[in-house]
């Protein structure tokens, strides 16, 4: 019998598992596919403080710190590069929005300064002459999300976590003193269970715990160009948050910003919408005109589950002792390693370094779950 069973091997599940194991727990992690092959491995890899939700800035700063220090806890720098970032406003209206949003983030500790368009072009010579105002954050950068699965696999093995890939959890049964996960390869039992199923959390919670936490399925689009000579050096974003743009070390330019494709948890992201692809590319080339010379070689979609209030759910499930959930974290690549550590601290009975996010507030009564749980809307920590 293990101490903790983690369901889902994205950045959240892997980080929780790693911290629990390093604290001495016997941990088993079950992942339907390969480690970090969903959101955590296909995300744009942007570590931009400037575009995080104001309320999450303290968490994002700690997440950023962990990435800058990845060699120490993950065993590799994970392609971390701090290049600084500029966020752009192209109209007067956007300039006001930018100033207001950045001020809220600054109040929560983000080191952001507002700069004029000339200064912005000094900082990033690849910019067009279109921005009217910009903000600058020296911390912004990126890491390679595509390597994450391989890095966690090695780190988890070193920490003696039993990792089972291509092992889908088909049901979780509660039994005295713990939980048992059913898989094709047989049952796996532990005293505790951590649900870290990303966009698939909603289904897991409903199926195995009768708890309904609606998740908005965001089908995020990311594109990459073929290798190009250097055309830009910073992370470039826009006031609305709908662009992230950077050139990686190998010369490819990665274009994201949360433009949407079609997808759902059953089929994954299955269709790129041409207008949204062209729209995302137009916006990118409006900011950095040298992109017009590029060829896009790949566009992909990944699923991100957002709660209705767009805040994380990290904590114990009501009515299910020793069952925990971690998810719903926007910008979860940046913040994930820290969120995982916070939940591990909580599970280990320590005081988490920052408050975690009681999932109870996000629960809505559902007919199938009637009688199993009650809604306590005001108990978010």
């Amino acid at each position, binding site marked *: 019998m293990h101490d903790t069973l983690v369901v889902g091997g994205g950045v959240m599940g892997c980080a929780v598992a790693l911290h629990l194991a390093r604290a001495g727990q016997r941990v088993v992690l079950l992942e339907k596919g390969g480690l970090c092959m969903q959101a955590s491995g296909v995300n744009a890899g942007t570590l931009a403080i400037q575009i995080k939700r104001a309320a999450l800035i303290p968490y994002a700063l700690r997440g950023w710190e962990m990435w800058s220090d990845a060699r120490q806890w993950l065993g590799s720098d994970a392609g971390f590069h701090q290049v600084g970032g500029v966020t752009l406003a192209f109209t007067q209206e956007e300039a006001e929005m930018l100033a207001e949003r950045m001020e809220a983030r600054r109040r929560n500790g983000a080191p952001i300064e507002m700069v004029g368009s000339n200064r912005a072009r000094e900082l990033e010579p690849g910019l067009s002459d279109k921005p009217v105002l910009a903000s600058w954050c020296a911390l912004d950068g990126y890491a390679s999300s595509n*390597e994450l699965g391989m890095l966690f696999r090695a780190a988890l093995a070193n920490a003696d976590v039993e990792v089972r890939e291509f092992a889908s959890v088909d049901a979780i049964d509660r039994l005295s003193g713990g939980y048992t996960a059913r898989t094709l390869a047989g049952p796996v039992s532990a005293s505790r269970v951590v649900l870290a199923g990303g966009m698939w959390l909603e289904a897991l919670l409903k199926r195995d715990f009768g708890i309904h936490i609606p998740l908005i399925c965001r089908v995020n689009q990311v594109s990459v160009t*073929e290798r190009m000579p250097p055309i830009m050096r910073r992370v470039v974003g826009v006031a609305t948050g*709908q662009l992230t743009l950077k050139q990686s070390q190998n010369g490819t330019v990665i274009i994201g910003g949360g433009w949407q494709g079609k997808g759902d948890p059953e089929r994954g992201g299955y269709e790129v919408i041409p*207008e949204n692809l*062209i729209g995302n590319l137009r916006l990118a080339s*409006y900011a950095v005109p040298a992109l*017009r010379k590029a060829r896009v070689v790949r566009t992909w979609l990944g699923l991100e589950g957002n709660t209705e209030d767009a805040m994380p759910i990290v904590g114990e499930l009501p009515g299910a002792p020793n069952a925990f959930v971690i998810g719903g974290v926007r910008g979860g690549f940046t913040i994930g390693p820290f969120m995982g550590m916070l939940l591990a601290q909580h599970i280990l009975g320590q005081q988490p370094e920052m408050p975690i996010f009681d999932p109870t507030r996000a629960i809505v009564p559902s007919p199938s779950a009637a009688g199993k749980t009650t809604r306590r809307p005001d108990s978010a920590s």
Partner: protein
Amino acid sequence: MSRYDVIILGGGPAGMRAAITARQHGLDVAVIDEGQRPGGQIYRAPSRDLQPHERAGATDLAQGERLRAAVAESGAHLLTRHRAWAAAPGIRVDCIAPDGPISLEADALILATGTIERVIPMPGLTLPGVIGLAAATILLKAHAVVPGGPTVVAGVGPLLYAVAAGIGKAGGRVAAVVDLLAPSEWAGALLGLISRPDLLARGAGWMAGLRRAGVPIHHRATLAAIHGGRGVEAVEIAPVAADWSMIPGGPQSRIAAASVAVGHGLVPATEFARLMGVAHRYDAARGGWVPEVSEDGRAGENLYIAGDCAGVSGAAAAELAGSLAGLGVARDLGRISDDTYEKLTARLRPSLRRAQRFGWTISAMMALRPGLACGIAPKTIVCRCEDISRQAIDNAVAGGVRHVNQLKSTTRCGMGPCQGRSCADAAAEIVAANTGLSREAVGIWTPRVPLRPIPLEIALGDFTYADIPWPPMLPA
């Protein structure tokens, strides 16, 4: 957005015949092809600048011209120089046209995208002067160009002898033919080939011609390496076992050459079918991963797959499958009754089966055997776009990779502009061999659009800031 009854993706024999058939039943048809003119691979249209005597060298020219004329007369919209980069149920096909991006809509879709050539890498493959075997047929057919000789022609399948004979006929010199198969394997296939005595005779003619010209033919042999500095200078020929692995310590011979044409079979081009969500299975004898379709090529609602992209079966079968697909769409869209459909298809099916018997015999001969990719040397580059060596793949598998999608994300193998079309088989074979898993289990790369690179200059068009279709904003 332009709308049609049916879009046919690919203007080879399958696509052209599907278009002609669909037109016969009154459907509004668009044929998309990236080539200058319809024709596909086998009926590749000769370049218009070629002199008549240069064109004469092209085999199959007459049948190609007949089909091209028929499809031109059929009233189908021939959207050549249109490169499709995505398709979606519903049905929508997104293309880069000569003037920019366009999306086409239709009630039905027929995929007839043909094949791509498989080349399992060996040292020296990237030297100037090395071309694909199938690509060599295009040089010969479309441009009447012969590779700079002497040429070594290596690999597997009838294209070996077609290319070697074609080079000889066009005035080039063939230094050697290096055939992975033993003569007994050719003899063993005769039974399956007998249904097409014309093609069999043509093949025998090629062989006899090569023998007359004194071209050495190495059977059960492979290119261990291609040597050279700024171009090809020599090749190393090594004997192989029945599984196509090089025999350790076997006698190698080195011969001088200035160019190499090498190919290890044809692989169905299934990316569009996979993008449309069609289930696939691995069948080495049909070229690799093939879509699950009915005998008439039906893959789903208003979706048909015809020709070599449904499993390599050759040009004759491709045409017949195209006809069946055209009829299937005509029935699905209510242009012909079930009875008429049964009557018309009943006549075609026996011919299709006969043609498939021939085509499948050939594709089974070309089926990839495990020893070839296993023998790739550690330093040899497997993914040319991203510069990924055999060693890097071995390392990834040692690090826990068990599926090709994991391989792709951890090593970037298959992530480049060719979308992994060139290295898919070699990479998957190595993962399968190193893990002991089957090719089914190690899987196939998830297709990512754009299936062909999109040049932004063309795709973006002229636009103002107001023309950017903003999505709704998220809470800050």
